[in-house]
């Protein structure tokens, strides 16, 4: 049974390894999130905004030319059609309503590529709340359009100048900012990472993805269950959302595509389960890439959204118990898959999502298998990377 326990553990992963200064905030959230999320008032507002503001349900699209090429029945779950261009907004809508119910006045968040930062700045504008986004100095330089989008939306973008100046350091800075402003501020974590209850809370907000897949597939195939669900995993929020309602349906294979970078053994990779070991990162016990002395190793992926040294604890558990199949997709293969999908289906995917597309080449399946690939985001934000890469 894949389920979080009372202490926030999935098997041996999870928990809340946080400094005491964060304890009251995290405890407040833990005590209240389930009751708030279960209330009719919350659900009405959340469902209403997902429908009218985000544009849900997102289509489950039968990709006929892709299916023909791979010899299976392949569906794309079109999270790329969400407002702001990716699944990230499902979570930020949920968390900002929660923050309002908790009486918070300010929002802080971390961002890597800027997608979660944009999704957070968007909902802050929607709700009229003050918004500060922490972003690594290096990411600010390489994701300039998203920085400007956040600023247009009224957010303050603060560079994280510590450590490696990327996503993990932006997360550290956001945690420090929360320690410094514990009373009036809510921290919207963007993935299924961090101390309990964040991983489960974020997964529940994202679980709308698999909730929709079930009824959409029922309409199209006469069954709720595909044979395989494929999603990319950085921290793993889109994968958690796509897997959530299938965790305990063993007939449905769950495939997680990690970023292989320049190759799993190149020293330039973000393939966490391939290269990582158990440890603690950002408040939870999980699998992370680290030295034998326990120092966190800086990952590499061409896709900023997968450029993270750990994975959410639920994914570490799926890996640990063999419920998930983890594959590593290299930069070059993800780029080729992105271009291939553009040519076959007229959809330019985010490079993150292109990793999930390429995973078709790395797994075994039969001709009649129904495969759902979670297309977590669109490629607009990655145009610069596509242009520099070339090959089209």
């Amino acid at each position: 049974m894949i389920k979080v326990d009372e202490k926030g553990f999935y098997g041996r992963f999870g928990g809340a390894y946080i400094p005491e200064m964060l304890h009251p905030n995290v405890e407040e959230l833990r005590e209240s999130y389930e009751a708030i999320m279960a209330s009719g008032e919350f659900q009405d507002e959340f469902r209403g905004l997902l429908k009218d503001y985000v544009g849900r349900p997102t289509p489950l699209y039968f990709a006929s030319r892709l299916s023909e090429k791979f010899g299976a029945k392949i569906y794309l779950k079109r999270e790329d059609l969400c407002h702001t261009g990716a699944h990230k907004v499902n979570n930020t809508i949920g968390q900002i309503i929660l923050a309002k119910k908790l009486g918070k006045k300010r929002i802080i968040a971390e961002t890597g590529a800027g997608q979660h930062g944009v999704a957070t700045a968007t909902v802050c504008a929607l709700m009229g709340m003050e918004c500060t986004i922490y972003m690594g100095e290096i990411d600010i330089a390489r994701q300039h359009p998203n920085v400007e989008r956040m600023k247009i939306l009224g957010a303050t973008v603060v560079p994280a100048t510590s450590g490696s100046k990327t996503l993990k350091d932006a997360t550290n800075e956001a945690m420090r900012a929360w320690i410094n402003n514990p009373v009036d501020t809510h921290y919207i974590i963007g993935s299924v990472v961090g101390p309990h209850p964040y991983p489960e809370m974020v997964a529940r907000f994202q679980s709308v993805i698999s909730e929709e897949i079930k009824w959409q597939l029922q309409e199209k195939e006469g069954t709720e269950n595909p044979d395989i669900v494929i999603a990319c995993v950085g921290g793993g929020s889109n994968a958690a959302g796509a897997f959530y309602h299938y965790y305990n349906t063993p007939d449905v294979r769950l495939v997680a595509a990690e970023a292989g970078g320049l190759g799993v053994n190149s020293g330039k990779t973000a393939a966490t389960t391939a290269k990582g070991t158990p440890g603690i990162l950002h408040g939870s016990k999980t699998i992370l890439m680290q030295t034998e002395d326990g120092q966190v190793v800086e990952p590499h992926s061409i896709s900023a959204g997968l450029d993270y040294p750990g994975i959410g604890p639920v994914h570490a558990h799926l890996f640990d118990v063999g419920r998930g199949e983890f594959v590593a997709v290299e930069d070059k293969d993800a780029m080729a898959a992105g271009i291939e999908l553009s040519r076959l289906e007229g959809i330019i995917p985010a490079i993150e999502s292109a990793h999930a597309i390429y995973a078709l080449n790395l797994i075994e399946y039969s001709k009649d298998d129904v495969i759902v690939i979670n297309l977590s985001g669109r490629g607009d934000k990655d145009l610069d990377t596509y242009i520099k890469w070339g090959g089209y």
Partner: protein
Amino acid sequence: MNRIHTLFNTKKDRVLSIYFTAGFPKLEDTMPIMEAIQAGGADIIEVGVPYSDPVADGPTIQDSNMIALENGISLKKIFEQLAGFREKIHIPVVLMGYLNPIMQYGMEEFCKKCQEVGVDGLILPDLPMQQFIDDYKGLFEHYGLVNTFLISPQTSDKRIREIDENTSGFIYMVSSHSITGAKSGISEEQIAYFERVKAMNLKNPRLIGFGISDTETFTTASNYSNGAIIGSAFIKTVKDSKNLSEDIRDYIQSVMD
């Protein structure tokens, strides 16, 4: 008896604990700094175990951690440096570090090694109290290590009582809503928090840390507790030092005067 207990049995007031980062500014400065802290007259030495992602620390300690790691420090190396330190250092020594490097070293092996070299206590800021009680309390006791928990102005009275119940050395009172090195000076709001905790008559002694940097803040903190902890301000002193032993002695004496 554990040296921390011995200390607080005899000294109830103006206890000064100094935090420094092992392997900083130079890899082999660990022992000379410890000797200088003792020579300067401080009561407790906190040896910081560097970590790549210290979330409770401000820029000064973050930078010292990064430099120490670049210098080649590791927990293994720290234990090599600490081997035999009890020949020179007689005051209590506490190791302070984040959980992950210790987990990779192995918690039991770590505790055993601490006892072997002569460490008296541990401060592990991201070790949750419940996890400590469930998994490690017996282990720490077995190896003669006292454990210190942090409390902050946000910590409820109920939790402070629980922490007091499960602490056996001293309680580390974080002075404000902050990471290390964030503020200087002590506000009225902080004084109210110090008084609230003082009035609780806890069984453990209390040291106030975060934002303590000079004789004025040290004295204010001591008026409401058993003493104080200095970290970032001390790191700044050693960072720019041309003569470690002299500068450390001068700094500590300027605080204690």
